[in-house]
């Protein structure tokens, strides 16, 4: 009986596979979307990709030379949070079974490294839409001929990420000085992970320079479910600003318990969980006044592309796009397709040569790929006013609002950045005795 059902299943699978192979008359452009599809990041990848593909297919496809080609997306679950070998198998499958022309996606650095290698083995363009590690792009500069097919679309690298956060910290400190007129004491709380180590060192060096007193550094585990011990210690240290670096569930725990215990300190920094719409519900409203970097925020406009993209996305998926969603969308719609149309072929080398020198507008700013000091392309993203800056957002009474950049300058004589829809930052009321 069991063997029967197994046999039937096999037969059924064969049928499905055959049926799926047939409708591929005419040439399509195959784009592999790889990501942890069971998780928010991967869902974002897929949502952004489908939106971009539908838009292009609705207008007839991509003009490649004299031919109109439709885009065909292939979903690959990398399962990279659980199993790195799985991620590489998924990538290999995309390359050799599905024979994709391009790949977008990726999130966990430990998995993106081997996935990058596989894509480079097959000389396929791989656009990273999730991992922030600088070293991924350093490889491009070091061994251009091998790694030139790798591009970063989002986020900008970790060095810029932490500099953005310092700008946020400086702004929060300025607000506190003005409203409370107290000396600023800052505590660093970062989840224990390799990506935070560099940031902690930078923070420990920078915070005193910003005119604040550093009172201590705490590193709970990234999955810690109880940080009351750390919180009591922070309160004891007299800190009134907490610089947070969280990407995992500890971000919820920390925000919720700090809010519940009314710890008299403002939270500023990176808290990936706080970027999600579900954060308010997840912290039961205790995450009020939490401040984090983010890429998109309802009501904030980088340029004329932002609002149409946001409206369409929210209408279709009923949530604010995450950066993986936006990045994947941009990678297909603004990076790949215009370059394919410009060179008029799917030849990877030609597209790379065209794409790396472009400067183009996306809903979150302007993308320009960086070069090292001696002029080698890194395919990393340029950061600063006029290019990509991201946002500082704060939860204010159940709504996520944009509060940064507000008249922000990278250099004293450089251009200034303020986007449409930015509102002033608020301090938790329990801070004012």
């Amino acid at each position, binding site marked *: 009986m069991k063997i029967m059902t197994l046999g039937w299943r096999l037969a059924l699978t064969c049928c499905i596979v055959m049926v799926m192979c047939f409708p591929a008359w005419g040439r399509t452009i195959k784009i592999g979307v790889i990501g942890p599809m*069971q*998780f*928010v990041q991967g869902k974002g990848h897929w949502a952004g990709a489908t939106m971009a593909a539908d838009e292009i297919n609705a207008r007839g496809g991509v003009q490649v030379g004299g031919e109109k080609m439709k885009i065909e997306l292939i979903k690959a679950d990398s399962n990279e949070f*659980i199993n790195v070998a799985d991620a590489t198998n998924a990538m290999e499958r995309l390359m050799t079974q599905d024979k994709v022309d391009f790949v977008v996606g990726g999130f966990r650095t430990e998995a993106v490294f081997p996935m990058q290698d596989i894509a480079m083995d097959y000389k396929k363009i791989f656009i990273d839409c999730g991992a922030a590690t600088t070293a991924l792009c350093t490889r491009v500069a070091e061994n251009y001929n091998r790694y030139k097919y790798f591009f970063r679309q989002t986020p900008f690298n970790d060095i810029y990420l932490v500099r953005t956060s310092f700008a946020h910290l400086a702004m929060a400190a300025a607000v506190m000085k003005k409203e409370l007129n107290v000396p600023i004491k800052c505590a660093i709380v970062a*989840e*224990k992970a390799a990506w935070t180590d560099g940031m902690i060192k930078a923070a420990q060096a920078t915070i005193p320079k910003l005119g604040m007193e550093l009172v*201590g*550094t*705490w*590193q*709970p*585990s*990234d*999955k*810690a*479910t*109880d940080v*009351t*011990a*750390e*919180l*009591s*210690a922070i*309160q*004891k240290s007299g800190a009134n600003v907490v610089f947070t670096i969280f990407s995992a*569930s500890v971000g*919820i*725990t920390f925000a*919720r318990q700090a809010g*519940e*215990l009314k710890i008299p300190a403002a939270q500023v920094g990176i808290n990936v*969980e706080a970027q999600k719409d*579900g954060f308010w*519900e*997840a*912290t*039961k409203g205790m995450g009020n006044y939490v401040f984090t970097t983010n890429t998109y925020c309802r009501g904030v406009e980088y340029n004329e592309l932002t609002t149409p993209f946001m409206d369409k996305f929210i209408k279709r998926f009923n949530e604010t796009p995450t950066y993986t969603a936006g990045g994947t969308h941009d990678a297909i719609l603004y990076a790949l397709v215009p370059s394919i149309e410009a060179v008029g072929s799917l030849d990877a080398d030609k597209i790379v040569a065209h794409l790396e020198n472009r400067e183009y507008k996306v809903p979150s700013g302007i993308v320009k790929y960086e070069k090292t000091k001696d002029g080698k392309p890194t395919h990393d993203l340029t950061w600063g006013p006029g290019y990509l800056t991201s946002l500082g957002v704060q939860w204010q009474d159940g709504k996520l609002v944009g509060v940064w950049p507000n008249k922000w300058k990278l250099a004293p004589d450089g251009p200034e950045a303020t986007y449409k829809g930015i509102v002033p930052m608020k301090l938790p009321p329990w801070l004012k005795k």
Partner: protein
Amino acid sequence: MNILITGLITGSMLALLAIGFSLIFGVARIVNIAHTAFYMVAAYCIYYLSVRVGLNPLLSMLTAVAAVTVLGLLVYKFLIDPIREHEGAVLIATIALAMVFQEVTLRLFTGDYRTVDFLITGFFTVGGVKVFYQQLLTFGVVLVTLGAVWFLLMKTRLGLAIRSMAEDREVANLMGMNESRLAMITLGISVALAGLTGAVLAPLTVLNPYMWMEPLIIMMAVVVLGGLGSIKGSFVAAFILGFTEALVVFLVPKGAFLKGSVALTIMILVLLIRPEGLFGVSFEEER
């Protein structure tokens, strides 16, 4: 003072988990890897009932504990009992079971992080430390449960049977005790304890389908440190490791992520001196 309070709270949670695990091992020699998976299922049950359905939190907790117990008994009856004689098979069956629970939860609730409301909100301050009422409640529940388990084991006929079974299975069997039924009852109690842990802990943690992995390791460390099958041992060991974790967090703030590793190292060191754990009965070689 900080260390004392944090240690007490962490220890009490560990104790609750470890005692259930220890019980079923003692009686049935089942290393139930899925123990913490039951705890996860209970937590998700509460989330579903109280947040999605909108049931009274207390009521949903009771329902969840009952549901998990029934689930545990069914699983035992149909999946574990038939292969009881093969130790290795039981072991990987429980691992596979935990994976199934994890995947089903993942399908039903996705991988997003979830949280549950506190039963009583607010906090109070003791010696400069802020403590949630919820934590106090957890502590209370742990003490009551421990008392109940102790009473059950020491003062009732069932408890006597369980203890004698743990002491020597063959003789107990010869004395006319129904080994299989007793194992089933014990498993029920054990799973109910896991469910109860889920119920009191759910409001304090962040729910995700992989949450069973983390406490599993430290729970096993507690059980081994205390001596397999010894309730008293589990209790003492839970507090030892709880205090160790608190000490690490407070004395080496930058090394807070190392608390698990330090606790495990202590366990290994103790085992080097006392291979059967602190209070373990060094049961005779079973042939």
